[in-house]
């Protein structure tokens, strides 16, 4: 670190420095090395998220909804609209420059029926449009769906493979019902084969449009009914490796960006705590005596305060801006650092090299920050690696209880926030479990690795501490 000026020329036998020694010991610790690899990997992912993330983390096609991992779909918008003679404004960005776009669309035809039930039997079925009376509504062919449209605008769960017939009871799939009532049922029928739309574009304007070979003026296709989209002869599909959330956002991208926020908060708040803790602890340890007693009594008292409550109050009352969070969490964590550094300084300041520095005319500040503090680096490094996961945990805890950090009024979804929204979106049978499981694994793995790395570093840098948890 700070070698005296009169160091003899390099000794013939090469010694191992503290750090080489520690690195050798660390390499033997498999769990710690695993932790190191994962931490480096996760940090790389977090830093490179903007380049790695396949999709925008904050925007999704709502027509997708929550889809399970490895879901793939044609790359189209919610509503795709083209009109002859107009520029293609309502089309997936990036398709404007194409010459030919074809959409293969499953068109559905929707018919509404008024169904009257009397004494548990269907007595009358009428088409709402035109009030034409019919005998049966057959929804058994594949792709056919019956949906009840209630008066308040809500829909009953989709029923498939059912037949509503006069003189027969209502299919059981419609659930428990009064003996006599009237309901509106919407029958969605898929056309026999897919319909093919082809558009030719030139100079940024739609030249012509055809539907199954017949020329048309305008085309309007819903995203969910598109089966396939070809742009200049290449099919455009997207795969969501970890699925999508309720608003169609790609979960993998969200986890990558979430990690960025979690790790950022962890690192910066740790640096804040590092600066406060080291300076405070160093001064306390170096000053000794009454000053030390007083400073440490303050730390003791602050230690007993349940900070999480104060941090929650702070965030609730002063907004959840990310800078407030950095300071708040950093200010919570510095106490242990101060104690550790103080203890180190107390023992180090009796060493000869301090005496030597003093003899050569170095002032107290110089001795403290040029000679003593660098020598506490080992312990500081160990404690820093253990503080990062603690801070990540706290930030996620806050995000989980609804205090997700914000920047410029935009909420930043860290892993904690993702876990929270995953939990809220599970569904009544846990059918959307990937939304909870994927971010949970990302977070748990990272915390796990950071803890292992920290423990391993402690063992490597300070073998006497070994085994004390």
């Amino acid at each position, binding site marked *: 670190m700070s070698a005296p000026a009169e160091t003899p020329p390099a000794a013939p036998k090469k010694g191992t420095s503290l750090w080489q020694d520690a690195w050798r010991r660390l390499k033997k610790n498999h769990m710690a090395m695993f932790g190191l690899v994962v931490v480096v990997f996760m940090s790389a992912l977090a830093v490179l998220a903007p380049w790695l993330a396949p999709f925008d983390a904050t925007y999704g096609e709502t027509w997708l909804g929550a889809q399970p991992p490895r879901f793939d779909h044609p790359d189209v918008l919610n509503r795709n609209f083209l009109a002859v003679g107009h520029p293609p404004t309502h089309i997936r960005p990036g398709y404007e420059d194409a010459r030919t776009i074809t959409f293969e669309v499953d068109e559905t035809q929707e018919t509404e029926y008024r169904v009257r039930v009397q004494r548990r039997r269907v007595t009358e079925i009428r088409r709402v449009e035109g009030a034409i009376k019919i005998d049966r509504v057959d929804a058994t062919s594949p792709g056919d769906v019956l949906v009840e449209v209630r008066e308040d605008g809500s829909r009953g769960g989709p029923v498939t493979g059912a037949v509503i017939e006069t003189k027969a009871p209502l299919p059981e799939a419609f659930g428990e019902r009064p003996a006599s009532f009237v309901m509106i049922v919407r029958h969605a029928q898929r056309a026999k084969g897919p319909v093919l739309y082809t558009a030719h574009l030139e100079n940024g304007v739609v030249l012509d449009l055809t539907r199954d070979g017949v020329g048309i003026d305008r085309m309007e296709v819903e995203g969910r009914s598109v089966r396939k989209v070809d742009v200049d002869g290449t099919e455009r599909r997207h795969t969501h490796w970890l699925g999508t959330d309720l608003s169609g956002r790609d979960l993998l991208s969200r986890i990558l960006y979430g990690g960025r926020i979690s790790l950022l908060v962890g690192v910066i708040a740790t640096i804040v705590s590092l600066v406060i803790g080291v300076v405070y602890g160093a001064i306390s340890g170096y000053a000794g005596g009454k000053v030390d007693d007083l400073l440490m009594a303050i730390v*003791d*008292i*602050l230690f*007993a*305060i*349940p900070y*999480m*409550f*104060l941090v*929650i*109050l*702070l965030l*609730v*009352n*002063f907004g959840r801006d990310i800078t407030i969070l950095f300071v708040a969490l950093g200010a919570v964590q510095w106490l242990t650092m101060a104690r550790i550094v103080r203890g180190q300084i107390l023992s180090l300041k009796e060493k000869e090299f301090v005496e030597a520095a003093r003899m050569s005319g170095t002032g107290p500040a110089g001795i403290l920050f040029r000679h003593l503090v660098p020598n506490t680096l080992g312990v500081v490094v160990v404690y820093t690696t253990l503080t990062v*996961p603690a801070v990540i*945990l706290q930030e*996620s*805890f806050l995000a*989980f*209880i*609804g205090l997700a950090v914000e920047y410029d009024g935009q909420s930043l979804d860290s892993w*904690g926030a993702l*876990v*929270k929204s*995953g*939990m809220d979106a*599970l*569904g*009544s*049978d*846990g059918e959307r*479990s990937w939304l*909870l*499981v994927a971010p*949970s694994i990302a*977070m*748990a793995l990272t*915390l*796990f690795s950071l*803890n292992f790395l920290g423990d391993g570093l402690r063992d490597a840098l300070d073998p006497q501490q070994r*085994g*004390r*948890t």
Partner: protein
Amino acid sequence: MGRYLFRRLLQVPIVLLILVTISFFLMRAAPGGPFDMDKQVDADIKRRMEEKYHLDKHPVVQYGMFLRDLAPIHVFDREGNVSIRPGFDLGPSFKNKSLSVNEVIWLKAPVSALLGIAALLISLVLGLGAGVVAGVRQNSVFDYGSMAVAMVGLAVPTFVVGPLLALVFGLWWKLLPVAGYAADGGFFGGLMAPQYLILPAFALALPFAARIARLTRAGMLEVINQDYIRTAWAKGLREHVIVVRHALRGAMLPVVSFLGPAVAQILTGSLVVEQIFAIPGIGREFVTSAMNRDYTMVMGTVILFGVLLVAFNLIVDVVYGLLDPRIRYT
């Protein structure tokens, strides 16, 4: 010991005062108040409401009034006449107008207490059991297995474990309710309907069980090779007597010193567990009242948590001294 205890006891009011002061001014310093939310309230009504709850006065005056009401015993009434009545008055709840803060705390604290006690018991039973067996049978399959589980338990936070438990046992297997609490509430009501408590208590207990298991194992390993254990073997005592009566006592020390922070973390952990499992406890009350700017309710819960934390740390320190006669406090 006496001097040490005295110093620690002296610390208690200072800690609580700092906590109360910071929370009090944090709540008041922010713009807005409990009565300007949702719908527009008539200015006159708002003014009268604020007058009723003394919100029109300067925060420092409010602080003084708050501390006065908080005193353990009131000797004088507001006019200065002598009239003794019990103190610890936290005032009315701003949002829940029919109840005082004390009443809300009496209503909700037992629920949290039950959850916390259940979690503590689970973590002690699991942690000590696994730790002792792992320590006695070092390097066995059980040792490696339980320690691997403990590592996972330590690294995975409660708010991940909780939803995952709810997902598997509540939503997939439908064995236990996902959320909620016994209909009639309270401590005994919850005891009568334990199915609501199992998942939250386990979620809360897991990290502590893991920590206790690791500490116990390390303690057992340290103790098991010492002379007095060899003596016990030589006397011909049976294994379970040696393990439980001799070794465990020595091995328990780090566990006991962990219990102080553990209780603290169980208390904070209850914030999130009560949130996950919709348990009407004091932790959830704190979060909702903080969001609602219910000043008095926030202060009440903060004080309750603060007192509990400080008290438990103190108790643990004292117990630690009793368990290990080598420790002398000065």
